[in-house]
């Protein structure tokens, strides 16, 4: 965690160019102004001290201010709900569709249903978020006119297409991994015993197989968060959602460095914490996993 912050901070520190001249838009400044700015942002201090100052600041929830003077954490508060809704939508699709695909494919193994699911998932994994987004936008938003094309004026319906854009790909990869994991479990002794005891297929799959497949599936969710963050940037740009990802791109285009840094830092911290949470969750699900 500390190392991660150090890594991001170090990259920013090593970036070429003078931060002060960038702040002034590369116009010449008087020496006294430069000195004031330097003192204000502690730019005259060595790396280590700057780093500890930064740590102290973010532990108070202060991620710095943008060039226009707004606090990064304020903007994040304002835009966070949009991204969370998008992420929740995508995860809902991921869980429901991914589990359904993997269970159906595993139970109907080696039938045409299995192979068509296999082809479908392969297809969805292959197509990048970028392309899925535009295809959905064109077909359902413009040609059929069923759903809002962009923005969030349409209420919850505005989130359907963006969530699908993100969720379909995840669901496909979850479907594949889930299928092979369920198949692995189905060949276990305890499953054969359950069948022998005359339990219905539904009960065997639901109770005995799925429970064992839960840990890898939850782990995949945790790792998916990283892709979700990257995908959210692209999706929000395509569908013009006023979320964190979109503001990141706006900040990049307007050269608003502090905001980019603050945002990447916040996202990274969220990612680290969700993965910690996932690890703890796995330990709860499967008592064999323990962390000393």
């Amino acid at each position, binding site marked *: 965690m500390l*190392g*991660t912050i150090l890594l991001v901070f170090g*990259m920013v520190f090593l970036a070429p160019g003078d931060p002060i001249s960038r702040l002034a838009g590369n116009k010449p400044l008087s020496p006294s102004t430069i000195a004031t700015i330097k003192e204000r942002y502690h730019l005259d201090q060595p790396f280590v001290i700057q780093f500890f100052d930064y740590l102290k600041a973010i532990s108070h929830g202060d991620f710095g201010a943008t060039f226009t003077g707004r606090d990064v954490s304020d903007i994040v508060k304002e835009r966070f709900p949009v991204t969370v809704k998008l992420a929740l939508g995508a995860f809902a699709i991921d869980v429901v569709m991914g589990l359904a695909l993997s269970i159906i494919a595993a139970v109907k193994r080696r039938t045409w249903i299995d192979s068509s699911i296999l082809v479908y998932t392969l297809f969805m994994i292959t197509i*990048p978020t*970028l392309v899925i987004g535009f295809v959905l936008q064109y077909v359902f938003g413009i040609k059929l006119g069923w759903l809002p094309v962009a923005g969030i004026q349409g209420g919850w319906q505005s989130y359907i297409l963006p969530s699908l854009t993100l969720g379909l790909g995840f669901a496909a990869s979850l479907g594949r991994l889930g299928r*092979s994991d369920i198949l692995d479990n189905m060949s276990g002794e305890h499953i054969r015993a359950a069948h022998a005891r005359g339990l219905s297929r539904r009960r065997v799959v639901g109770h005995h197989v799925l429970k064992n497949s839960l840990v890898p599936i939850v782990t995949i969710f945790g790792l998916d968060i990283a*892709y979700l963050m990257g995908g959210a940037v692209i999706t929000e740009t395509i569908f013009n959602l006023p979320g964190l990802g979109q503001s990141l791109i706006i900040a*990049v285009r307007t050269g608003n460095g502090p905001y980019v840094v603050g945002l990447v830092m916040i*996202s990274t911290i969220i990612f680290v914490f969700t993965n910690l949470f996932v690890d703890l969750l796995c330990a709860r699900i499967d008592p064999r996993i323990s962390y000393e």
Partner: protein
Amino acid sequence: MSKRPTSYTEGVADIADIVEDQPVTLWSDVRSKLKRDRRFWIAAVMIAIFAGMAIAPQLFFTDSISPTQCNLSDSAQTPSREHWFGTDILGCDYYTRVVYGARTSLEVGMVVGGLTVLIALGLGSSSGYYGGKTDMIISRFADIWFSVPTTLGAILILSLFGGGGPLVIALVLVFFGWPDMTRLVRSTVIGGKHRGYVRAAKTMGSPGRTILRRHVLPNGIAPVLVFAAYTVGGAVGGEAGLTFLGVGLRLPSISWGLQISIAQTRFTSDPYLLLFPSLFLSLLIGAFVLLGESLRDALDVKLEDG
């Protein structure tokens, strides 16, 4: 071999026949499996076509149209016999521009794939084989790097350092992407280092490096190859995504991500501008995913009956 040998000697003769006919090694087995795999051939043909576009794009044009030969009066024409994919906003022939885009994508994909494999083999094998402090340091670093989401990290670096050519983007993708494969190599090396033949080599006094190179790595290379194919596909998509977001390549570079990004502004009136680069991008990524799938099935003994 369903016929049961009637006597001991006959059985031995059978086996001797088989051995003499066809010495089955891992690689000959893999080759024959790949030859029978339709997915492998589809992937191979597609990659060959895209490689052709990247190396000699001129071969794909009927006459001497070039991607920089543009005529503003031909702006945004729909596909026609003259311009197969139509023309873009600046009146350039879109087909040639899309074909030239293959070079950028493949360049990024190959550099990322190659470098990641090299780094992963180097770091992963020493971390897995030597263990102890080496392992701890490398694994810690991998953990730290892993916790920065690739796309976000790449956006950060590229926006701070101000973009660059395909090579810079490839290096940035490697910079954030190496931990995955390094972990994979580490775990396969750990899985393989206690095998009998490794201990035998150690007993005969081979130095660690030689054992690693000649015994451990060749037997653990399969998952790396499979993963490399996916990595190339992922890098191609990554470049397009970053470029689309405006932190990757800039004009006058020719890249599918750039074409998609420009086409986005006009995609209600000229959807074909979006269609063709998207299609090519998906096909190229698909080719590498298919390659990975067929390799995985051919190399992975565990999935043999699945």
